[in-house]
């Protein structure tokens, strides 16, 4: 911290040093179309390396050295102008809008390029689209923002990550998350999630989503799931401004779309099923009924009196367990630049309370980015990001240790406390409210990245660059089952009460990248850009786990306070390396015809001795038709480009050392053991993806309408599978490269500026992606692989297509459940072997995307964003429980469970089977539900106080705003519960995205108020 402050002062000093200059010119720069002032426009004296930028009012002031004759004015989205200074001391300029592509710079691979020069599929998400949102996870903020990118929240826990799928799920066992690149540095896959949740979204300049081969092949063995390139702000477009932002609001559970039984309904249900609950038994005992009295042999009036007694003490457990969490954010940032240096500094504190006691998220993060032109041929820059997040965790399991299970399972007539003041264990045998106090679990992550960059440009066109990235992630977790807590009573050592685990890990990775690029022309029309590079990555991981039991009190929790070891204290260590060579060539003719090629050779320590190296290539072509003279005259076409690419990339995301034959060590009866632990597979290698893409980029009507359409076809080969070996060998699987799957689809992205006037702007945007996923090959002799008991991988079907027994409705004579056997005949006999593959029903959506609009009128701005997903299915275990068929009579249920068969004729009404406490609610397709939904994701309304007022108090700008997140959900298929399903239950192993719901942390909605002030 001290160092940060010192560095800041240094930067401020650099910023304020003024060099002697000669002539001063001032002026105002506006947009020609609407006359609005343009802030951040670069104004440079040609040939003198002197420049400035306009302030928020579009004004600039520049000292022109002797001999300065021309100024060059440039701004993204506008045509560059060069103006003679002459004798003028005031030069006002109006800029004309340009095609967006011709001026937008995009970070692609190891270089930045003009968007118009690209022949690849890249979507850029700008700072504006992700800032000011009260969600601390950058990955979640991308939901609905980019065509081809499906974002699904893992669950609603504050700060939790999301599943990111770029162009479908491309792997089954080797990971499907994209590669994350931050400020040019490849982040290890293990750490990516922590970066998404510790990076401050307000510090991000933009995020490039690299999708096709032309964009990702240069990332070789790590590129096949796509690449997200995050670039943090560098101060180049700021003007020494000091900004402070504040947000405050509330986090709450999105209300359920179903109703639980009230006490009267539940008691009647129990009676009908022949169940006397213990609260009623206690009532009978304490109200001097004879010992033989039961719920069923007393009079109706007596029974009703007892019920009334229970109804009187009933309550809604949601009110007891759930809370609204506070969301508070403070942020300070300073950005600026001088003629030779630029800097950006920021600090943020973000706190979000969770939905229960014992659940929250707290984060500190800081960024310092500095760039300086040390010599005319040398630029040094360094960017540093550090974030610490601290979360208090609740359990994500399938019992009452999970508060989000308990809110449904506890019966309304069961009191929180017994008459003696102790916690009521309830029918679930566990008081969650006690556990939230006495079983705390705390997790901390310290995540950082320093990227140091040397750029040497000795001659025009040549750039030699060396970049060293150090990324670090420190994880620690403590879990304390306090002595004498209920859970301690269940699982602890009665003679050594209380147990405490401290575990964690450290991961350090360095990524050293050396590149040389050379840009040159041959005969003016032939433009070349060649790049060659080398990269070396080494990752070192260590972890530890310590456990003690026997604590004197719940206030003492360090390991040395414990009496005895609880379990084995362990440490673990591993390392991997990746060594790569790569090159690319870009060529264009007259800025109209473009061709690129790339090549990368990767060697990885993870792969077998006979397959250490892999080669990846790509080629692409594009044609910027709008640069042709025959189209230049058609004024409504601002830009038109056709492009196509083909190439390969890899996925090496498997564990370390998996190719080796190993003996591991352990303990038996406190003595050393050695055991065969892994079968050798010297030919183990990465998955390879062949990616093909054709696309059109367009901008019409002075770029008022712009967008792109892509068709892609991606095929993953050498799919890694844990291939079963004969279990008689004592092993069950060996990892082999055997399968194949494909993703094909179309993406469309459109924006439109409906109104672009001086007073009012209104724009709309939208994107949609249609994706079809299909497993095309498994290993030899293998017809299908079952995943998690619900789905299968089978050639010809989508990833994880459901395989379930089909429910055939209620038998009208006796109310029993009926099923279809494999042949389609109705049977009362449930056999798991009657499960059939339900073609077309898988968690993969058929299409998804987002749309939104933003309006501004004078100082008022409004933006609204929606996301949608359609066509996926999820196995709804919550519905299976809460609308079960009588076997869960002892817990609370939804009112839907009352709707069961009672007499012949009922079956026609589509009821549940007759409620049977001895029956089993089997898994059938009855509980498989479509998860299509549309969510009003974000609404932001802001008001910027007029400058005329704020400037009186030396404030450059002041904006107040309101943000709402997850405001409304349209759930057309009536999915029982929230239709956005990521994890079903982390601790029950239901972690395949969207496969099954099972009481994981619920999605939240937020309302926050915010204020941004800049000096």
């Amino acid at each position, binding site marked *: 911290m001290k160092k940060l402050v010192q560095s800041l002062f240094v930067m401020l000093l650099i910023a304020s040093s003024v060099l002697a200059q000669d002539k001063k010119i001032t002026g105002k720069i506006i947009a020609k179309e609407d006359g609005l002032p343009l802030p951040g426009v670069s104004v440079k004296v040609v040939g003198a390396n002197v420049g400035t930028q306009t302030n928020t009012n579009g004004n600039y002031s520049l000292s022109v050295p002797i001999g300065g004759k021309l100024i060059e004015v440039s701004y993204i989205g506008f045509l560059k102008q060069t103006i003679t200074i002459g004798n003028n001391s005031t030069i006002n300029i109006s800029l004309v809008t340009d095609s967006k592509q011709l001026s937008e710079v995009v970070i692609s691979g190891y270089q930045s390029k003009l968007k118009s020069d690209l022949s690849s599929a890249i979507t850029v998400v700008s700072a504006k689209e992700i800032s000011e949102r009260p969600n601390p996870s950058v990955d979640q903020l991308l939901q609905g923002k980019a065509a081809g990118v499906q974002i699904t929240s893992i669950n609603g826990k504050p700060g939790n990550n999301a599943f990111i799928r770029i162009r479908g799920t491309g792997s089954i066992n080797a990971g499907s998350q994209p590669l994350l690149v931050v400020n040019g540095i490849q982040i290890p896959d293990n750490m990516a999630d922590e970066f998404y949740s510790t990076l401050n979204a307000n510090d991000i300049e933009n995020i490039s989503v690299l999708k096709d081969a032309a964009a990702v092949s240069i990332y070789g063995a790590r590129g096949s799931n796509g690449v997200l390139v995050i670039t943090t702000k560098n101060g180049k477009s700021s003007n020494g401004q000091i900004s402070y932002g504040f947000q405050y609001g509330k986090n709450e559970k999105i209300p359920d779309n179903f109703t639980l039984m009230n006490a009267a309904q539940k008691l009647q249900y129990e009676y009908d099923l022949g169940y006397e609950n*213990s609260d009623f*038994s206690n009532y009978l005992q304490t109200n001097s009924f004879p010992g033989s009295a039961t719920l069923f042999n007393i009079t109706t009036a007596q029974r009703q009196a007892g019920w009334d007694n229970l109804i009187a003490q009933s309550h809604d457990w949601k009110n007891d367990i759930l809370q609204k969490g506070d969301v508070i954010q403070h942020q300070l940032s300073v950005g600026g630049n001088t003629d030779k240096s630029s800097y950006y500094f920021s600090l943020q504190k973000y706190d979000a309370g969770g939905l229960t006691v014992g659940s929250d998220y707290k984060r500190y993060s800081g960024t310092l980015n500095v760039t300086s032109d040390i010599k005319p041929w040398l630029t040094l820059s360094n960017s540093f990001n550090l974030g610490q997040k601290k979360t208090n965790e609740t359990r994500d399991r399938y019992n009452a240790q999970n508060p989000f299970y308990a809110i449904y399972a506890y019966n309304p007539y069961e009191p929180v406390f017994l008459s003696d003041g102790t916690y009521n*264990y*309830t*029918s679930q*045998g566990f008081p969650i409210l006690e556990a939230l106090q006495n079983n705390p679990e705390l997790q901390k992550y310290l995540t950082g990245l320093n990227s140091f960059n040397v750029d040497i440009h000795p001659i025009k066109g*040549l750039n030699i660059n060396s970049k060293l990235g150090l990324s670090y992630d420190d994880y620690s977790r403590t879990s304390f089952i306090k002595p004498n807590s209920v859970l301690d*009573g*269940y699982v*602890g*050592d*009665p*003679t*050594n009460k209380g147990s405490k685990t401290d575990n964690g890990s450290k991961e350090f990775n360095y990524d050293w990248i*050396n590149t*040389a690029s*050379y840009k040159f022309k041959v005969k003016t029309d032939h433009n070349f850009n060649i790049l060659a590079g*080398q990269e*070396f990555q080494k990752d070192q991981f260590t972890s530890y786990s310590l456990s003690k039991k026997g604590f004197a009190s719940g206030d003492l929790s360090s390991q040395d306070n414990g009496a*005895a*070891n*609880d*379990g084995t204290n362990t440490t*673990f*260590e591993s390392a991997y*390396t990746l*060594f790569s060579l790569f090159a690319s060539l870009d060529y264009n003719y007259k800025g109209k015809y473009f061709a690129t090629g790339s090549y990368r050779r990767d060697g*990885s*320590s993870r792969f077998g001795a006979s397959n250490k190296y892999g080669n990846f290539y790509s080629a692409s072509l594009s044609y910027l038709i709008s640069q042709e003279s025959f189209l230049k005259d058609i004024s409504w076409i601002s830009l038109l480009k056709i492009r196509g690419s083909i190439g390969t990339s890899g996925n090496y995301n498997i564990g370390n050392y998996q190719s080796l*034959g*190993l*003996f*591991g*060590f352990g303990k*038996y*009866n*406190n*003595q050393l*053991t*050695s*055991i*065969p632990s*892994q079968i*050798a597979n010297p030919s183990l290698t990465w998955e390879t993806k062949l990616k093909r893409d054709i696309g059109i980029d367009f901008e019409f009507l002075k770029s008022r309408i712009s967008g792109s359409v892509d068709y892609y076809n991606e095929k993953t080969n050498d799919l890694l599978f844990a*291939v079963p*070996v*004969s*279990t*008689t*060998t*004592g092993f*069950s*699987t*060996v990892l082999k490269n055997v399968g194949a799957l494909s993703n094909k689809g179309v993406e469309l992205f459109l924006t439109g500026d409906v109104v672009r006037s001086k007073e009012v702007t209104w724009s709309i945007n939208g994107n949609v992606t249609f994706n079809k996923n299909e497993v095309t090959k498994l290993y030899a002799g293998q017809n299908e692989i*079952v995943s998690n008991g619900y789905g299968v991988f089978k050639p010809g079907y989508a990833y994880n297509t459901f395989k379930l027994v089909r429910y055939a409705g209620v038998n009208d004579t006796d109310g029993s459940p009926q099923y279809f056997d494999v042949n389609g005949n109705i049977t009362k006999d449930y056999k798991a*072997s009657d499960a059939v593959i339900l073609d077309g029903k898988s968690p993969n959506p058929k299409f998804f995307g987002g749309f939104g609009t933003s309006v501004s009128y004078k100082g008022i701005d409004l933006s609204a964003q929606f996301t949608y997903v359609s066509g996926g299915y999820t196995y709804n275990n919550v519905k299976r429980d809460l609308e079960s068929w009588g076997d869960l009579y002892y817990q609370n249920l939804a009112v839907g469970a009352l709707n069961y068969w009672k007499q012949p004729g009922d079956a026609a009404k589509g009821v549940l089977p007759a409620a049977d*406490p*001895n*029956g*089993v609610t089997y898994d059938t397709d009855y509980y498989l539900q479509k998860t299509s939904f549309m969510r009003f994701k974000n609404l932001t309304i802001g008001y910027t106080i007029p400058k005329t007022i704020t400037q009186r108090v030396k404030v450059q700008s002041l904006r107040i705003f309101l943000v709402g997140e997850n405001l409304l959900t349209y759930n057309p298929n009536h999915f029982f519960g929230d239709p956005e399903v990521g994890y079903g239950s982390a601790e029950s192993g239901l972690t395949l995205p969207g496969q099954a719901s099972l009481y994981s942390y619920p999605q939240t909605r937020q309302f926050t108020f915010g204020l941004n002030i800049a000096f």
Partner: protein
Amino acid sequence: MKKNFIYVSLLALFALGGCEKELTQVPFNSISSNNAFVTESDFINAIRGAYGALRGASYYGGEDGGAMSSTPDILSDNLIINSQGRKSQQTFFNFNYTADDTWGLWNNAYTTILRANYILENINKLSDGTFKSNVKAEALALRALAHFDLLRTYAKKYIGATDSDLGIPYVTSTDPTLLPSRDLLKKSYDLVVADFVAAKTGIAINNGVGRMHKAAVEALLGRVYLYMGQWQNCVSESTSAITDAPAANALASASTFPSIWLDQSEKDVLFKVNFLDPDNITIGVGYGQASPAGVKPEYSVDYNLFTLYNNNDVRKNAYIGQTVFNGFNFNYVKKYSGRASGNANVVDYKVIRMGEVYLNRAEANYNLNTAPSITSALQDINTLESNRYTNYINKLLVGQALGNEIQLQRRLELAFEGSRFYDLKRQGLAVSRSSFGDRADGTGLAAAITGIPANSPKFQLPIPTFTINGNPNIQQNP
């Protein structure tokens, strides 16, 4: 000049290629398979590793998802699923298992076999002597035990089997590419016997009950002969076991009997699997968990079985506890609730006990049905019962009454020790549950599925689908 710059920078770039040697990375916690058997201590570590495999999560170390300590009792008439429990192993209780959802003992047993085979394949790296023959015998005995557990679970009963009935693959190699078929049932049993017989000759008498030793091997071999209906062999192996057992492991008296279940005495125990707190294996969880507000049982003791225990039967209180949970009284199994100190539900698993050896011999002698053998059977029953009941007076039983008493004592003695299902199966009997409920007085929710008929195919558990995926040569049970 310009070109030189480019060439120099390109050269500099590729000169950095020395990182290649970093591409070979080896783990920090394992060694290559080739270096695993060099010294004697490597073999000691490896044989412990083989014993450790018995702790497999669906084997003797199973908790609530298939376990030798509970599953064979759940599959029988000894237990009733508890309405307050987590409904663990309900699939077994309802006889609903399928190849996709079956007992995973298969994998754990073959893991044990693999570890034993590694030792046997490398055994000649040791020089001849007592160390070598003892380690070799231990490995053989473990291999035989694991194969036997597979046989009695997945194959048909031996008595009455045809020559074409299938057993299980008897694996004697570590080659990971082998795809063995199921050996014939009779051959499989013969190989189990052969391994035990070979083990018997080389093994030490005093390895301790945490390892195989002479009496343990003989006792297990006696059990195998009982399953095979080879009564005379069963009698002689059981007799050898009783003779060869160290005094510390002789039949427990009624007064020491309860301390066996707290691991305070090794009386009666011939072979056990050790569980310590650091193993994080809580085998008792399969039967229930204690809370400050009573024990939350997964299964209740069947009320019919409960009433078969007389009050002067020391086993009644050693095996069964009474609890009030959530307002209801239950009889729960407390055999695995844990030691006097240490983590709850952690206790050694007793694979074979002296009590069983007497019962095996009594049953075999009864079936030999000669005058001296009947006398001997009655004598064994009286010996056992006089060590289980307080104030016991010797019985005089003959004929069917003696046979029934042997079976009754077997059920009472070995209840909740993974025996009942196999005992019904090997004798060709049905599983036939009482209609009592889960509560301590026999009221409450009764079993929905009351049993399976004699010789039902359900007696052969399905082989896990996963196994057949990896080896299509393995024929599934019908």
